[in-house]
């Protein structure tokens, strides 16, 4: 249990294991991200898709490599060191992804994995999974998704599968994880977070959140080398209170300050290379009250270091979260052993 004693930060860091992990993760504090919709096309159409919600899907597509090159150079100049290439399906425009990689070499591509990205684009590749292949066929209208994804990314160290828990696929996570483990792949967990106005059956309830947490915990314990997650990740993403309520989202959409951090540097570019501060967050058009998205947590929980530095247990949990974030998002970063096995309650502000 987390204790009530008031610890100095130096006392927390006096633990050599915590200190070592702190020194490991803080080397990555230079990461400053922005995200980019690469194309308005996709080779599948999934129920509840974040891209095909709201206005961003209607932005004109800019396929001019020179324009993207210029954008990346401008982004680099203003301090962006990590790019997230998303919407709708970046693998359909590999030439643009290559241009991004050539200018800003750290980043991640969110893909459905049905079309393999050239190996030269050495970003992390997040391959989306929404259940077993039967469920994928129903929700994503694509046959044999997992089998095709694994074939495309066999022995590819860039790949990490992102399993999005919905109320209807919780029990399928084991089957998917086992299959990925058998094939030497890695997986992390995401939570379906309702788009604005969505009230369909994929919206989580307190009961499905609790069941999801239990399954995450089991899989993390049973497949520690396959599952990139931590107990504190489970807590943060399956809490009845969403990420914004727990941690005060720091993306521009919910954060008016432009003084420092994400509120200052983050932009979400659409396919026409324009961005709108009022809509800027990692997954635009998500209902902020229901947001438990893994990408959101990676920035929002990570940014709240100060409030986690209250005692060694809470700080260790935060370090686990940051370590997981880096392992999932940064090519070449090796995840460490979990420091805090307890499911601690997130600290209040």
């Amino acid at each position, binding site marked *: 249990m987390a204790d009530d004693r008031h610890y*100095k*930060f*130096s006392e927390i860091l006096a633990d050599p294991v915590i200190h070592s992990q702190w020194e490991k993760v*803080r080397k990555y*504090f*230079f990461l*400053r991200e922005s995200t980019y919709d690469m194309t308005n096309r996709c080779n599948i159409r999934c129920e509840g898709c974040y891209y095909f919600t709201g206005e961003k899907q209607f932005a004109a597509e800019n396929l001019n490599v020179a324009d993207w090159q210029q954008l990346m150079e401008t982004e680099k100049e203003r*301090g962006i060191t990590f790019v997230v290439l998303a919407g709708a399906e970046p693998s359909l425009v590999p030439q643009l992804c290559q241009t991004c990689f050539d200018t800003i070499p750290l980043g991640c591509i969110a893909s459905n994995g049905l079309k393999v990205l050239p190996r030269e684009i050495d970003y992390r590749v997040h391959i989306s999974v929404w259940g077993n292949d039967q469920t994928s066929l129903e929700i994503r209208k694509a046959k044999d998704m997992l089998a095709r994804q694994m074939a495309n990314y066999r022995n590819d160290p860039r790949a990490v599968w992102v399993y999005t828990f919905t109320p209807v696929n919780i029990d399928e996570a084991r089957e998917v994880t086992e299959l990925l483990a058998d094939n030497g792949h890695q997986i992390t967990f995401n939570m379906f977070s309702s788009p604005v106005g969505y009230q369909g059956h994929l919206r989580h309830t307190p009961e499905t959140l609790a069941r999801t947490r239990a399954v995450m915990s089991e899989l993390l314990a049973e497949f520690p080398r396959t599952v990139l997650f931590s107990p504190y990740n489970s807590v943060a993403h399956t809490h009845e209170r969403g990420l914004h309520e727990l941690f*005060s989202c*720091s993306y521009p959409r919910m954060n008016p*300050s432009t*003084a*420092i*951090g*994400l*509120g*200052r540097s983050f932009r979400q570019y659409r396919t026409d290379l324009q961005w709108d501060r009022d809509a800027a967050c990692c997954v635009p058009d998500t209902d902020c009250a229901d947001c438990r998205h893994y990408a959101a947590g990676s920035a929002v929980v990570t*940014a*709240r*270091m*100060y*409030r986690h*530095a209250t005692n060694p247990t809470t700080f260790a949990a935060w370090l686990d979260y940051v370590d997981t974030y880096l392992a999932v998002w940064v090519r070449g970063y090796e995840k460490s052993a979990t420091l805090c096995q307890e499911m601690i309650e997130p600290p209040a*502000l």
Partner: protein
Amino acid sequence: MWYSSISVQQRDDAITAQVTTDPQSPWFSGHFPGDPILPGIAQLQMVTDIVAKALVMDMHLIDLTRIKFKKLVRPGEILDISILAGNKENTYSFRISSRQEDVCSGILTLAPKEEKKLFMNTDIAPTILRIAEIIINELKLEDVTPQTFDADLDLVDEIGVDSMDLATIALILRDEYGIRIDEDDYPKLTTVRIIAEYITKKQAEDD
């Protein structure tokens, strides 16, 4: 003494002086062996001494702003110093040059030495120096010391501090001064001076 006055002239609020540095000064033998240069603190003390002499008062330095060091000072170099009284009491802008090249410039705040005890209670200069030291250490800044760190530099725009850096600095300050720095206050903490004032205010609230 590591310098000798060649000339000192005072006219209204302006002082001009010319000094020469002493090659035998211990400053040079220790700073640095085989590559002697006059430390910044010695240059600032020269300016303080010249003002004190002009005012015929025993003065000491209590604050620095916008200090910039542009050229190394070697043993025996002749320096031209111009000093102008500022609008605020006991503030002086100065410029040191050598052979028409700028050596150092900035603004000093001085105080009579007999008032030192009074200033110790309200003066934020030590806090400024300590915060500067923490930032220099945490960001691994080179070519700057706490004494030469400009307390009015914008930490984000001019130093490149990000939110995680600031959170780390805030935790170290929490340890040192026993205050809580609210996460919502981070955007306000734009300069070392503002952080020092914030700490002083928080400490006063806690008392």
